[in-house]
Every structure is written in C-alpha cells, then in structure tokens.
C-alpha cells in the first residue's frame, strides 16, 4: 500500500492503482478523455497530465501507477498550461459544429474548454482538416468523424466489452479516423453504449438525435423491466415525454445496458398501446370497466364456475400480491397458479438474461410464502384471470379470459394497464436484489394500476383489504444492495 502525496494531501493507494484512480477515490478530479473506469487504459489523449516531483516531464495520471513517496501536483502552473495546450491541440481540427451537435450539454470538449482552456483558436477555419460527416452506423448510431478526438474508447468497447471488434482506427496522423469493419458492421446488442462513452459528439444516438437538448431534460432513476437482469437505468424526460434511457452504472448489476432496453420506452406512446379497456369489442372507461368485471365475476361465482388466477412474472410484487388477495379473499378460489420462467442465465456473458420476465424471483418468494402451485397442474377452468403476455402462450380458449395488458390484441376481455414507466412497482432481479421502478410520465386516462383496479373490484364485493404492501414485501427474503 504505497503512500503518496497529492496537492499536499497524504493519500494511501492500493497496490497497482493509477494516480487518477487514487485521486478519484479521494475527491480530486483529473480531466480525462480516453480513460474510462470500465475499459482498459490507453493513455493517448494526454488530458490527464500531472506533475510528479523528480520526474522531468509531466506524466499521464491514468497510466502512471502510484508508488511509494510520489509527490504529485494536479493543479500547478505547469499542469494548467499543459491542459490548455492539449485542449488547443485537440481542437485544432475540430469543426464549429456545436450548434448542430447533439453532445451539447454533456460534451467534454465544451466542459473542459470552459474549465481549463478558454483560449482563442489560432487556427484558421479554412485550414481545418475535413473528414466524413454524418455516417449511419448500425441500427442505432450516427458517426461524425470530424468531431472525433481519437480517444479510442469506442474501439476498446468493441474489443473488450462486446468482443465483436467492429471498430478500428483507420489511417494515421491527422488523417486517422474511426472506421467500421465492412464485413461485420455494428450489429452488437449494446451499440448505444458507444454513444454514451464517446466523450464528444462523434458517436450519437440515431433515436435521440435532435429530439431535445440534454440540459432541458430531467433524469429519474428506475430499472429496466425487459429481462430478469433488471439493470438500473436513468430515464431522461420532460413535459411528460420520455426521450431516452441510459444506464446508471453500479457495482451490483450493470455498467452498460442493451439497446432493446433503451428502446423499451416506446411502448408508452406506441400505436399498439391499449388506452381503454376493451370488453367484447367495446371501449370502457375506468369506472365502467370495474363494474363490468365485477358483474362478470359475481355472476360466475353465483353459477359456481371455476375461476383460475394466474400470477405473472412480468408484473410487480404489489400487483401479484393483489392478485393473490383477490383469489383468496374475494373469489375464494383455490386455483391460484404461477408460471415457470425460463432458466435464469446471462446468455451472452454481458447482461442479457435468458429469462425475459423481470420478476420471476419475486414470484418465487410469493409462491413459497403462499404455497402456490405451478400452472403445469393446469386443467380446464371456466374463467382465467391473468397477464396477457403469459396467457397467450398457454393456448386457453379466448372467451374464458379476463386479461391485463398494455398492448391491443384479439382477446375479448382486456383491461388496460399502466406501464412501469407510468406507475411504480417492486421487482426482484435474478441476483435477488429488490428494486423499484419509478413513475416518470402520466398514463393515458383510462388505464389502471393493476393493484388499484383489483382493490376497486374487491370493494364492490364489499371486501376491504387490511394489509399494506410494505409489510408483506419486507417479509420476503430479498437481498439489499450494500450487503
């Protein structure tokens, strides 16, 4: 454990730790372009230069390992001048593109220019190197080579994270540019992470392009519900619209996220969205829907029909608890089932899980707690209540269902649900961590929170629930972050 001194402060480094990392841990910020905490160190941008006593030249903090007795200065006159010069150098051939560049607001060239540079360009606009502008790369990316500062973060991402090697630096010197291997193309499932890690506006997202300026958006932390991995995410939104989703890097689950997860927000305003409950081809508003379902169920109970309730791995713990409550205390039916999920495994070694349902682990805990059977024991029932995504695979006759759904479909009795961008819910991911989604936008007027809907139906049956979700969830055996 070498002891070093940075700007007069004595710090203790871990063995083999770089100066930049030691400083970062202790709250001293060193500017950087090519360094990224989750990629290998390249040391090519020279932005992180620091002064080390007894060394004749400035050293790059990202690639210099801290060793016993080093005295480092991160803010001396020499360092400040070096940063200024590096910035000027990086900006020599940089186009005047900020007005049409999507990186504004999160651009490290802009930020560092205002913090460390502030020098008028001595280079004439006409003399700048011109390279290829707008180039579509893969399904989700746009590349502008003029803006690239050749930090190679993107190249290292494709080498080290996705291991697909599609990107490389073509040519040399001031003609060098990022190119795409023609036979491969960018087809990996994590391509939008490149737009995130590119410190400038060279790689930008095709989907988010020109929609909004990032500084006009708010972010809300939430989780992705597209597979059992349950990545932590940031949702960027304003004025009741979601514009993009980016990962919220954390040590527990994810640094990156997949492209499908990022596009998941489109369900909110998609043309397939079910905005009204549909019963036998008629649209109903909220109040009428509750009434209709109540009539249907009370008639079924009077006729002594067999009603089955199927829990869903796609729905939150709260919603499933309400389903169990409805079955046990209102419908008084013994037929409560769960559906077995796929085996849980990170199928590509990065993030995507072979189990596509976000809450299988939550359901497993509920199944254990309430002693619920698996749907494999399924026999013929007169009415099946469940979530559309589950039931559509079970080949149950159409007429006999009451289904909850976000999407339109041909089933005769569909209750319109809010998505988990429009309501909060608790999920337990494949590692066993309990995480919550957050409401970021308002839902269409006539869609339901499932647990509210079920409680309203119970009220019509004159059954008044006397439990709270917090208490039940607390009893489940989930892991908490930080343990």
């Amino acid at each position, binding site marked *: 454990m070498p002891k070093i001194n940075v700007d007069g402060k004595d710090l203790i480094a871990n063995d083999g730790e770089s100066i930049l990392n030691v400083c970062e841990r202790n709250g001293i910020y060193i500017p950087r372009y090519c360094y990224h905490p989750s990629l290998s160190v390249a040391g090519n941008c020279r932005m992180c230069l620091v002064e080390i006593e007894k060394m004749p030249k400035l050293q790059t903090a990202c690639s210099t390992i801290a060793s016993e007795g080093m005295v480092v200065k991160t803010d001396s006159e020499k360092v400040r001048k070096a940063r200024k010069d590096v910035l000027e150098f990086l900006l020599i051939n940089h186009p005047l593109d900020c*007005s*049409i560049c999507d990186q504004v607001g999160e651009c490290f060239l802009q930020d560092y220019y205002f913090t460390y540079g502030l020098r008028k360009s001595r280079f004439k606009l006409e003399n700048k190197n011109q390279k290829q502008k707008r180039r579509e790369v893969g399904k989700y990316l746009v590349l502008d080579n003029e803006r690239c500062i050749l930090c190679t973060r993107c190249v290292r991402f494709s080498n080290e994270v996705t291991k697909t090697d599609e990107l490389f630096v073509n040519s040399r010197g001031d003609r060098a540019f990022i190119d795409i291997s023609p036979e491969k193309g960018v087809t990996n499932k994590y391509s939008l992470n490149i737009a995130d890690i590119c410190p400038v506006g060279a790689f930008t997202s095709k989907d988010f392009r020109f929609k909004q300026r990032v500084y006009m958006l708010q972010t809300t932390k939430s989780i992705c519900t597209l597979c059992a991995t349950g990545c932590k995410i940031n949702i960027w939104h304003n004025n009741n619209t979601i514009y993009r989703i980016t990962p919220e890097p954390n040590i527990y689950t994810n640094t990156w996220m997949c492209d499908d997860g990022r596009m998941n927000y489109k369900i909110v305003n998609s043309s397939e969205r079910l905005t009204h409950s549909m019963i036998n081809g008629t649209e109903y508003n909220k109040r009428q829907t509750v009434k209709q379902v109540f009539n249907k169920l009370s008639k079924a109970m009077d006729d002594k029909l067999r009603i089955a309730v199927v829990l869903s791995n796609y729905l939150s713990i709260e919603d499933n608890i309400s389903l169990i409550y409805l079955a046990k205390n209102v419908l008084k039916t013994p037929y409560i089932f769960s559906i077995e999920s796929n085996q849980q495994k990170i199928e590509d070694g990065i993030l995507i899980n072979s189990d596509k349902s976000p809450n299988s682990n939550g359901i497993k805990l509920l199944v254990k707690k309430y002693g619920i059977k698996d749907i494999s024991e399924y026999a013929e029932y007169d009415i099946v209540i469940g979530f559309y995504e589950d039931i559509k695979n079970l080949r149950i006759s159409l007429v006999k269902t009451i289904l909850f759904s976000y999407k339109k479909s041909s089933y005769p009795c569909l209750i319109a649900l809010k998505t988990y961008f429009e309501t909060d819910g608790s999920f337990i991911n494949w590692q066993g961590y309990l995480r919550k989604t957050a409401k970021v936008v308002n839902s269409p007027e006539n869609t339901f929170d499932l647990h509210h809907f079920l409680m309203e139906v119970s009220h019509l049956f004159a059954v008044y629930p006397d439990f709270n979700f917090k208490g039940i969830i607390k009893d489940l055996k989930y892991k908490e972050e930080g343990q």
Partner: protein
Amino acid sequence: MIRTKKLDEKKLNFWESIYIVEIVKGLVVTMRHFFINLFFPSRIITVSYPEENLPLIGNAKLKSLHRIKLRKDGSPKCVACMMCATICPSKCIYIEADETENYVEKYPKVFNIDMSKCVMCGLCVEACPEDAISMDTGEIVGGSYDRFRNYKNGGLFLTKNELFRHLPHETISKSGAANRLANKYLEDKND
C-alpha cells in the same frame, strides 16, 4: 441588507396646503391642452399606439419584431440549436428540431415565439451562433386581445410563416458557425 435613504419632503407653504389654488392651477393646464388638441389637432404630440407608430430612430430598429434570416435559396439560417430558447428569460421561444438531408443536417421543424411573453430583451439575438434570429424588422408589436391568434391576423403568436423572411433590400448574411456546411449545400444546389 436593504439600503434605505431618507428623503426630506419639501414643506408646503400656506397656499399650497389649502390645495384649492393648486387644483385650479392643474385644471388650467388640463383645459389648455384640451382646447389646443380640440382646435389644432396637428399640434398633438402623442400618437394613439398601437394603431399608430412613430418611426424608429437609429438603433431602436434593432429591438423590434423578430424574424429568422434566410439563406440565398430561402432556407432558414437557423439550425435549431436551441441557444435562443435556452437563454430567453421569459421562455417564450418554442423550437422542434428535425433532420434534413442536406449538409447542415438540422433545421427547425417548428419555430414559435409567443410575443405576449417576450420582454424584447434581445438576448436571443446575442445568443444565436448562426446570425439567424434578429430583431431588425422595424415593426413594433401592438397590443392585442388574443395571444394565440397568429400575428398576421392581429394576434401575438409568431410561427415559421411570419418569422422566416428576407427584408427588402437586405444584404444576405453569410456569417454563422454552420456556414461552412451551409455554403457547401448552396454550392451543390447551384450545380
């Protein structure tokens, strides 16, 4: 801390303190203007704004109704960078950007200014990196009973249709950050 300053009020003398004399004096002034205006209307020095306007002098022209300058081919110089909308203190500029096929890549699909909120500060003009938005039309926005009616129909709402225009006899501005791309685009168009 709030700074205070004491003002010594002038003491009224006897005639002033009984008011009657002062009231009569005031009435005389009012009546003089009334009769002058009644019999010699050409000597009225005020105008009935907003129906009438005085001609603007000097640089006052540069704080008048907004417009967006156009390029030679009639396309807007604006590239929807949002700088004006960002700096605008009354948040009255609304822009939706979209992608174009040409070199400039970006253009404003929607550009609205709600003049009922605008405080005519001119910050938008200062902020524009493209020399696109300007307040040099010499027109003064009048009062209106309808904020959201179009400016052309007597309202206070400016859209692309009213904003995008050349002025008569103007020399077309060629400055702007995206100008290299814009010129390339114009050259291509001439070929």
